[in-house]
């Protein structure tokens, strides 16, 4: 018995020492709002990204809303048209499927008015610039607010891009952190196993004692 214990302990120790508590083959997917589109990332928990993978988009009842494919970095975008819960599903093959939901409150602002407004605004700006071209002497005063609006829009786009760049590594880190298996959970699991088999042992022993 003692030898068996030593043998087991050695095996366990070797396993624990060699095993880096790190990543396994698990699919991770995340979605987030960016501007008026939904962006998402799909990859394996060991850092491989899912490239050129079909991502299907469904609503809550399983009706298909559309589909998109990931690029070389496992990145995809989807432009939502309705304010409903979006469910993204991807099949990475060999039993690796993933599903990720985007709840209502996480959705980007997409009320049709703003989309239409933006369009008309840019159209107006185009008209304005066309007008500026033809009649530069007239526009001096009227141009300034229009210009600043255009600049503002550009700035907003720039800031959005900057934030996106800054946040992406953080998001990755958080995803990686979620996947981390630290020593505590490993020891916890082993503890459960020991306890469970101890219980088995107890029950078996009781039965045996009752029999004898």
């Amino acid at each position, binding site marked *: *018995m003692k030898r*068996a214990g*030593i*043998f087991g302990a050695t*095996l*366990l120790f070797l396993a624990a020492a060699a095993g880096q508590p790190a990543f*396994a083959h698990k699919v991770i997917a995340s979605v987030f709002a960016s501007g008026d589109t939904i962006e998402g990332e799909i990859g394996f928990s060991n850092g*491989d990204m899912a490239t050129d993978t079909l991502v299907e988009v469904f609503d809550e009842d399983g009706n298909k809303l559309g589909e998109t494919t990931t690029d070389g970095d496992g990145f995809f975008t989807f432009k939502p048209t309705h304010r409903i819960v979006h469910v993204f599903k991807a099949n990475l093959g060999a039993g690796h499927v993933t599903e990720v939901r985007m709840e209502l409150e996480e959705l980007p602002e997409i009320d049709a008015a703003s989309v239409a407004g933006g369009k008309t605004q840019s159209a107006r700006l185009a008209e304005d610039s066309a007008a500026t071209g033809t009649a530069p002497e007239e526009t001096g005063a009227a141009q300034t607010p229009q210009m600043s609006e255009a600049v503002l829009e550009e700035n907003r786009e720039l800031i959005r891009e900057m934030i996106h760049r800054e946040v992406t590594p953080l998001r990755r880190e958080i995803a990686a952190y979620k996947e981390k298996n630290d020593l505590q959970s490993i020891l916890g699991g082993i503890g459960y*196993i*020991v306890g469970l088999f101890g219980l088995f042992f107890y029950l078996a022993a009781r039965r045996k004692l009752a029999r004898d």
Partner: protein
Amino acid sequence: MHIVDGALSNEVVIAGTVLAVGGVALGLRKLPMEKIPAAGVLSATFFVASLIHVPIGPSSVHLILNGLAGLVLGWAAFPALLVGLLLQAVFFGFGGVTVLGVNTLNIALPAVAVYYICRQGVASGSAVVAAIWGGIGGALSIVLTTAMVGISLALSGEEFVPAAKLVLVTHIPVMAIEGLLTGFAVYLARMVKPDLFAGLEAPAGGYR
């Protein structure tokens, strides 16, 4: 190796669960009191082994060690591996709770097959021969497990050949490593504790 929730059709999940329950029941009945500690240790080993990563190219695969569990435990590998899988699903998110039955079947049934195929060899008089049989068992259990995973996926509608091929190819290094590891484990066990591989049904009198 772990199939995740939602990858399989309902029929496969239900059939797998039913078969796994049968296997676990049989395993518990065939588990003598003297083997309970060994089952616990192997369950814990299996639980931890999945965290050992073998890097191959850009990807990596992890050890399973179901061959070793099968050689030592026989049918009792079912409950031992079930416990390991359940805790992996809960703690690490490997696999899932609904597909627990299928995963148990995919991993424990090869272990039992290896037990029947290799137990004569492992019980052989020479420790080296036993170690070689142990190595064969370790590698064989991975082959069988990949086949089982491929079949599960195929029954759920995925093309069998590409799916199985993908799983098989990525696990070739694991086969080699598990074969070696199981071989050495058997050798070590034969040296320090020769009666570990004694038949389960036989009352292991000299165990303590």
